């Protein structure tokens, strides 16, 4: 297993280089640059523009800019933000905690609701509960997350709540940890978790239900039943354990999502996550912020896949590293 993991980690390097080269090329192909927005400002003279181009290294050929950035990474320097004029790593680090915290809770909420619901509806197909759960799952999938967020804001205002928008009320932002702060955090957190998590519940419930129905009709499940095993053991040890395999892969692919957060929900609910930060960086053509973020997500995607593969091998004896 160790050799397999090492091989996979080493194979990430060329993939990351190709991804970074492609990303750099695509960013360069899009029209405009960070300094384009300065053109319309009467205060910015052509001389100032030129000096800024030199300062940001934008007068060098594109391939030199790329190699400079890549070389910097090897030395631990991931580049500077044109807009903020601070190292990109410090900018990402500032937003990482809340992004991970919010999206991890939302993902946990999604899975903790979706898997039991999918199992139950799979075990009780075509019952009134199944129909209602299916309808709600379709509804959750069909309603965009930002609409859920807007409806929640409306609901909060209707109830006279003061906990609208953001992750904490102003007096608790940056304050030392206290029970009052935790209470305030929870009051702000539930709309975010609901808005981000609800659409996922619909999809995952449907997948779990369909997988379980498939597995339940497999010969080995029939055999287990014929052997006289308890229903609970048949369902949880033989059926659910096999039906859950695709979820491990889905979880692996979700790793970058945990660090990006939901873009539109974050904007609507004013959540301090990396999603809106990356969006602004793309709009501003803040080159190295965009590049570092894309590289980071690409790395997380590969890491998530590796973890999923290792987990699958652990869960499913049919899978080997050979």
């Amino acid at each position, binding site marked *: 297993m160790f050799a397999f993991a090492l091989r996979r980690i080493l194979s990430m390097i060329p993939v990351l280089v190709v991804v970074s080269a492609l990303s750099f090329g695509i960013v360069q192909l899009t029209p405009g640059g960070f300094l384009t927005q300065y053109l319309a400002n009467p205060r910015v003279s052509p001389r100032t523009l030129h*000096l800024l181009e030199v300062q940001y290294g934008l007068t060098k050929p594109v391939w030199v800019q790329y190699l400079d950035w890549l070389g910097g990474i090897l030395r631990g320097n991931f580049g500077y933000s044109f807009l903020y004029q601070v190292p990109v790593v410090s900018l990402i680090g500032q937003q990482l905690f809340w992004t991970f915290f919010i999206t991890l809770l939302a993902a946990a909420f999604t899975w903790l609701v979706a898997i039991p619901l999918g199992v139950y509806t799979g075990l009780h197909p075509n019952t009134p509960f199944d129909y209602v759960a299916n309808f709600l799952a379709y509804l959750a999938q069909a309603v965009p997350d930002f609409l859920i967020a807007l409806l929640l804001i409306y609901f909060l205002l209707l109830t006279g709540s003061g906990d609208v928008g953001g992750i904490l009320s102003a007096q608790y*932002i940056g304050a030392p940890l206290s029970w009052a702060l935790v209470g305030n955090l929870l009051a702000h957190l539930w709309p975010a978790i609901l808005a981000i998590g609800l659409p996922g519940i619909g999809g995952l419930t449907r997948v779990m239900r369909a997988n379980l129905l498939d597995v339940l009709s497999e010969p080995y499940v029939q055999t287990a039943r014929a052997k006289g095993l308890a229903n609970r053991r048949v369902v949880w040890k033989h059926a659910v354990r096999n039906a859950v395999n695709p979820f491990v892969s889905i979880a692996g692919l979700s790793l970058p999502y945990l660090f990006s957060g939901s873009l539109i929900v974050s904007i609507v609910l004013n959540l301090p996550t990396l999603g809106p930060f990356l969006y602004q960086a793309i709009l501003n053509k803040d080159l190295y912020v965009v590049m570092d973020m894309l590289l980071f997500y690409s790395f997380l995607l590969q890491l998530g896949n590796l973890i999923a593969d290792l987990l699958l091998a652990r869960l499913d004896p049919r899978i080997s590293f050979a």
Partner: protein
Amino acid sequence: MRPMFRASLIAAALSALAPFALAKTVVAGPGGQVPPHPLIVGHSTISSPGRYGGTLYEVLGGAPATFNIYGTLNPHTYTVMMHNVLSPLIRENPVTGALEPGLATSWSSSKGGLKYTIHLRRGVRWSDGAPFSAQDVIFTMRCAEENPAAQGNNAGAFTIGGKTVAFSSPNPYTVVAKLVKPDGSFLRLLNEVDVIPKHVLAADCPFYNPKATNAQFNAAWSINTPPKDIVGTGPFELAKYVPGQEVVLRRNPYSFYASTYGQQLPYANHLTYLIVKSPQVQVAMFESKQLSLLGLNASQFSTLKAKQVAGAPFQVLLAKNPYPSALAMYFNYNDKHPDLASLFSKARFRRAVGEAIDYHRIIDQVFHTLAAKPVGWISPASVDYSAKYRGDYGKYDPAAAKKLLASLGLHPGSSGILHFPDGKPVQFTLITYGHNSSDQKMGEVVQADLAKVGIKVNLKLLNFSLLIQQSFGGNFDASLFGFGSTPNNQFRQPIWQPGGSLYFWHLSDRVNKKADPSVMFPWERALYKDFVALDTTTAPAARSALWDKIQRIYAQEQPATFLVWPDAALSAVQSNVGNVFIRGGYLWAANYALYLK
């Protein structure tokens, strides 16, 4: 962009200060020390004596990029730092246009207008306790305002007669500025000079520390800098920045601002800017009392006004915005299609377009009736404005427009679309900012109205960066956006500067980035000549005559087709916030004067 493009209605009302006069003894605010010569703020910004204490909550539409106003062009940085943490030398009253004291208490000029002597306020301290002196002004001019490598420099404006204005300090409380040519608007430039501390930033400026680089100066006072290292002479100082969430300012104990009621300002202990990007969430947070004060757009105004009328505990205010961004269309005189280039170059065509567009519909449908008919380039609030030419803008008369178009040799074909004499249809692409903006909605009205007079408009919606790139690259037929506004109309001189890049709709006067006046239209040359003459004209009557001439050319030639004058300043304030009021039609809400009742 700095003041030229800033649309903050509240900030615009900040600088009404009573000239001179220490009315009575000033009592220090909590924990404060009153300087020997405080600046007494006039009744125009304070309607009643306030109470000390509490926190005011306002909103920022995005995170500040830095806290160095000279290392960025980020509007959120300006909102936080200007008028709050930093102070200008001289302030221009946004309503009267009068120059009023700031860090400077008085000023005088030599007879020929080549030397200005500026006397500074004595006893002012930076928020870290260090004394303020003329050396700080010299530092600000050298490292920031006149340094072309500083991102937020103003070197162009301080280059007069081809030479940078030379500043010197004969003593710690006097600054002398020497010009090689007289400039009638020189003192108004000082309204833009927010002084930064030499004792903190000198190590980052190459002129004071040979080891420092220009990049280092631009990167100074970044968002990673500890707040205690960011100091100013304004009423507040930086207390805390939580990335992406809030900026907290607290009372500057050394604030030199005081009210006519004898109280050191500010009243509030803290001023917190919450970073909220979504306008919907901003309104929701205001409704849930998380914000003390909020600027509004037209549709938010209607919604909140209805709630106020129904008994909500806040006030929704409608005031005048003296200097809104004038929204206009620009036609490319160098269009790649020769027919269009020739047509767009004719004032009669531009006038016809102006008369074909129903500005009432724009006011009603896009601005919910909260805007006025177009007035041209210069605000009626400006001392330079001439009402004589008001009738030349916003003349909705489609029949007259059709006649003008016919006089240009354009005649309708079978489909109703006008054709050039060579048979080609009259159609062009109008680029503007998308994202369901008011610009986009205006573009839709333009498209529909011009279709009625036989001109086919293809509307192309772009993001702002691309809009600016295509416009300033000359790669467009017609472009629609706001070119900003400014109380200082002379700042528009670079637009008409031959060879400059700002006159993007007639770039052929620029050959290899150098001027080629031979291809300029006579009216363009005349316009620029008048702007140049303003540089050296100081007598008010002569300046008025020049501004009148410029406005006559604007009206006759219609270099831009103005669509609307969005002069409404809309805001909402919680009922427990004092010293927010409308006087003379303008909103007064200076942060240092606000208090919690």
